[in-house]
């Protein structure tokens, strides 16, 4: 049984991959993403300098040179190294925040879709309320109250992202719930927990995959915005905090393009990478968008 299922997944995955390969957008996204993951993983070896190493006065806010390919910031730190180490924060925040929203969203969606009735009504009411509260102000308020730290940022973004996941999961559960094999399992007396964990969850996972990838993109953007607004942890370099300090130290007016462009472009690329991938998966999983 188990092996069969693994085979089935393998086959499914291979099918999806074949469809995915055909999507130019998806492949561009994947390429961008893999590049950044490599950068993040090997950051300590790739960065030419210690990104936190404060320079001498003569090094402050200097345009690109051979020593500092992307120039230096207002503390004389190497910007290229900062952008490299910043990829870690962005990916970390993106992944963990998404994990939080996925876990909460999936649990809420599963319970809601599976049990229906009162539980569904209550949970969906809560979800709707969260959906309608404008997300950035809520994140700002939470982040401001919790104080600037990386984990707070992750928590804040994660907490804000779950409602849409919950909705998607719920609708999928509703359709799967009525399928023959689930009805049969219920008739056989399988426990609710078992049905949800063993039979419904795996089926849903592939369906919410596109959603997950897009959530990562949104999370990375949110981190950048919160950090830019000064809510990030100033002791950790991320692309958002780099832009925050660039803006605060007047890089725009000084024409310090080398300080403003690299982190911004990095954000755009990573978000674009995830978005393109999400889009490609969406086209695969949503047959209406697929070209016939």
């Amino acid at each position, binding site marked *: 049984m188990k092996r069969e299922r693994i085979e089935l997944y393998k086959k499914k995955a291979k099918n999806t991959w074949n469809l995915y390969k055909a999507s130019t957008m998806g492949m561009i996204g994947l390429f961008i993403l893999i590049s950044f993951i490599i950068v993040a993983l090997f950051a300590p070896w790739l960065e030419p300098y210690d990104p*936190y190493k*404060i*320079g*001498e*006065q003569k090094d*402050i*806010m200097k345009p690109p040179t051979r020593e500092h390919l992307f120039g230096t910031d*207002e*503390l*004389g730190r190497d910007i290229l190294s900062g952008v490299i180490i910043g990829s870690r924060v962005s990916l970390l925040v993106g992944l963990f925040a998404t994990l939080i929203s996925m876990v909460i969203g999936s649990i809420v969606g599963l319970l809601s879709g599976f049990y229906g009735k009162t539980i569904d009504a209550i949970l969906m009411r809560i979800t709707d309320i969260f959906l309608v509260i404008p997300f950035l102000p809520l994140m700002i308020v939470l982040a*401001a109250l919790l*104080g*600037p*730290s990386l984990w707070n940022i992750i928590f804040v973004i994660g907490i804000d992202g779950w409602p849409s996941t919950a909705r998607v999961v719920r609708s999928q559960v509703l359709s799967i719930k009525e399928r023959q094999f689930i009805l049969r399992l219920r008739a056989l007396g399988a426990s609710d927990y078992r049905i949800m964990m063993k039979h419904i969850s795996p089926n849903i996972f592939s369906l919410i995959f596109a959603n997950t990838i897009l959530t990562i993109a949104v999370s990375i953007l949110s981190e950048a915005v919160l950090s830019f607004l*000064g809510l990030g*942890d*100033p*002791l950790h370099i991320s692309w958002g905090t780099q832009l925050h*300090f660039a*803006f*605060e*130290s*007047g*890089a*725009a*007016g*000084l024409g310090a393009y080398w300080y403003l462009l690299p982190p911004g472009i990095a954000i755009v690329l990573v978000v674009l990478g995830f978005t393109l991938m999400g889009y490609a998966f969406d086209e695969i999983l949503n047959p209406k968008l697929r070209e016939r």
Partner: protein
Amino acid sequence: MRKDVVIWIFALFFCAAFSTATHEIRSQQPVTLRVGWTGEPDSMNPFVAVSTEYYEIMLLTHNILIEFGRKLEPIPGLAEKWESSPDGLVWTYHLVKNAKWHDGQPFTSKDVKFTLEYVIDNQMEMFSDYVSHVISVDTPDEYTVVLTTDTPTATMEAIWIPILPEHIWKNIDPKSIQTYEETHPIGTGPFKFVEWKKGEYLKLAANDDYFGGRPAIDEVIFVHYANSDVMIQALKLGEIDVVSTVPPTMFEDLSKTPNIKTLSSPQIGFDELGINAWDTSLTKNNPDLPDLADIESQGNPLLLDKRIRIAMSHAIDRQKIVDIVLLGHGTPGSSLVSPGTPFWHLDLPQEQQYEFNLEKARKILEDAGYMDRNGDGIRESKDGKKLEFRFYLRSEDANSVKAGQMIEGWFKEIGIKLDSEVMDDSTLGDRVMDNGNFDLFIWGWGGDPDPSFILSVVTCPQILSWSDCNYCNSRYDELFRQQSTILDRNERQKMIFDMQRMFYEDSPYIILYYNLSLQAYRTDKFEGWVEDQPVGVVMAYNRGTYMNLHLKGTGEEKKTGVGMGSVLAGFTLLWLIGWLRRNTSW
């Protein structure tokens, strides 16, 4: 049809957006000085406002009895002459006779009496310290005020209380003063308050009837910018004439810009590394400090060891912090009273300072028995306690974060570990007030021209009030009490020097730097800028610039560049309209 309307509305919007006519200034326009600042007054209510921006406005709209000259020396204000009795207990102020309130009412001694009594009777937090020894306010005639004090007081020439009009303030209930909103302040000063659009600008107009003579300019507009970068751009573009604070990163660039002059001058105040040095054995069961009788400090007791604090002081390269964080626009810190008030500042000779020397710092720690016994890079005390401290930095101030990161690095090299955390001022304040639940932090103090306040902050009774290093030294407190009663400036100076030396040696504060005030102004429109030491042309505790400034020649106004951008955008617009019209037929 409807589509056309929409298109034309957009077109109109675009056209208006591209018109630059608004930049031309017509000849009948009043002569206006535009001052850019990133702050804003926190209120117009003198009993509530604490910001320097408010004081700048108050200085222009109000008068005090005796004002400050350019060297912070007393000069006539509303009092044109004053004298004290030989015993120093009775002070007589002779008031100007031609002063008028902005609403036209005459100014008399009754207004002074009212203002001072309003402060004394209601113990107004902001001002009561200035008149704490005053026991009576008498007005023998309309233009004379006599103050009687219970003890000789050093600060009777520095009563920094704006004199308020009795006919308006008598109607304001002092009990609800904290929530009272002042919308249109009336004073006697050279400028009248016109309007304040919060978050945008504050406008003052010249007072034609000012007793000291009308200023040459007609208006002053203080323009608020959320971001200093934007403000500097506005200065470069000529949208404003002067900025009160230039960020260090932009200073050099500005000084190279034609028609702009930059200046840096000392300021009152400093940023310090504060250390929780609360020795509860001095405060517990101390009959003078009943409030602290049974309070335990929550700080790390290792920090009570003066040798650790001194080692820390040796491990901080203040010059490098100035170079990097302030880009050289500051002075390395030492004693408690800043060089912004040079008379009171103790200028410690180099050899008496704890110079930057990591080797020496290590040696001090070693001699004191702090060794790294387990090889983790962190020293331990004899009984195995790690030299690891909580280090709080301010989210409101990027400089504290930058300096903090540098300090963390140096301390690591001498075997002291800092756990840095960034928090907002309220949280930091809470930690300090929560029975000293902190080890180290970076914060700063602004200041008065008179050193009393900053000296008082570190006295024992201020623990869990103004004090944030919880320093307690009875000899220091004794000197503080003495100096406040001494009228002779030179004698007082000596005592204040002693206090500063004592405080420096004990190092509960490691003063990192004294800020310089960086300002910049345009030289092409006005002349007569008054550059003061301290603080600059504006926000300088005096109104020299505002009174002295006048237009240069006939004031030619240049148009702001229209340039390629708008031409390009104009074509885009035409194309867009055409395209919309062509393509919206479906």
